């Protein structure tokens, strides 16, 4: 039954993919291309490229689209459910437990001790984004965009939505790729 296959194809990357959606993409490819043969590697690459060009979480865009191609709207829903529900339920249960004991000093310690780790993770992501940008758009464009967006976001305090829209417009007009 196709819906069961769709469920499995997205359930497995969902529970094995640590590090957010982008980390689970190779796992999705393994299921969709190697195991079920719904697409060729080439097709998968094209869908991924377009998915990356569009906004929003990548894992659910891939799941929703591939589910739709294989099983229509119901297939799309099944794929989304499989990739989202298991990890979300786990998350809600754990956070609820943690919040129950939030006044205990031990749980308070978690908040304090985990902060440097989060700072490092975010710092690493920052570097990754800057390096990706240098690769695709070149150093000059990257530096210009960094300076201008820092000025707009932090000094002029303009809402991120407008800054992102400005960047989109700049990209479309200048054709930096």
């Amino acid at each position: 039954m196709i819906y069961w296959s769709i469920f499995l194809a997205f359930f497995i990357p969902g529970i094995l993919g640590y590090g957010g959606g982008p980390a689970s993409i190779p796992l999705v490819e393994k299921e969709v291309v190697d195991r079920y043969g719904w697409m060729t590697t080439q097709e998968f690459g094209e869908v991924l490229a377009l998915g990356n060009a569009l906004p929003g979480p990548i894992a659910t865009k891939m799941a929703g689209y591939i589910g739709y191609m294989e099983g229509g709207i119901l297939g799309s829903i099944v794929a989304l459910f499989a990739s989202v529900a298991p990890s979300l339920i786990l998350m809600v249960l754990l956070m609820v437990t943690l919040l129950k004991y939030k006044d205990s000093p031990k749980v308070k310690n978690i908040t304090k001790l985990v902060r440097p780790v989060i700072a490092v993770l975010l710092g690493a992501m920052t570097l990754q984004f800057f390096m990706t940008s240098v690769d695709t758009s070149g150093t000059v464009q990257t530096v210009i965009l960094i300076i201008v967006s820092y000025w707009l976001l932090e000094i002029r305090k303009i809402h991120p939505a407008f800054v992102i829209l400005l960047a989109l417009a700049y990209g479309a007009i200048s054709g930096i790729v």
Partner: protein
Amino acid sequence: MVSARKAEKKRRGHSRLKTNKDLFLAFFRVGLLGFGGGPAAIPLFHREAVTNYKWMTEDEFGDTLALGNTMPGPIATKMAGYIGYRVNGMVGCLIALAASVIPTVVMMIVLLGVLQKYKDLEWVNSMSAAVVPVVGVMLAVMTWDFFQKSGKSLGIGRAILFTAIAIVLLELLNIHPAIVILGVLILSLTTFKKGVGSK
């Protein structure tokens, strides 16, 4: 304080609808503006949940993000689903999820049909490429915030020490973040009897 709580209670009845609308709008915005997959949207989640709607404090956001990172699966939907759940139970959870996922999936299905005919996606790619450094700046600002907060609660010396340890573990030894965060969880639940540093 008491009158604030009373006002809150009075408001609660007809504010449910508004809460749901806020949840939808917040995660809809995050979904539509987050270029580069879920992790790129983390500063946007922070903006909506902490700065804009004050659904959680800075600390709670950090804890949620940390725990989200120890668990598998897409981070954006874990964050959206959990924040939605915190704000308005199961209904909030479903609204937040739908808002962050459905618009972009629909866009993907519709656009792929159209765009695959014109394989030349150069300008679309240029648009997304220009957003990448902007997200980088937002992440850099958040990084600095977390580090500063760390300095305040742990003392600057210990904050630098713990950050250095985290850099060695995560970046030099390439230990998976989930394992590092799990280690921190176990360490703080077992070893320290009292609070670390100042409140």
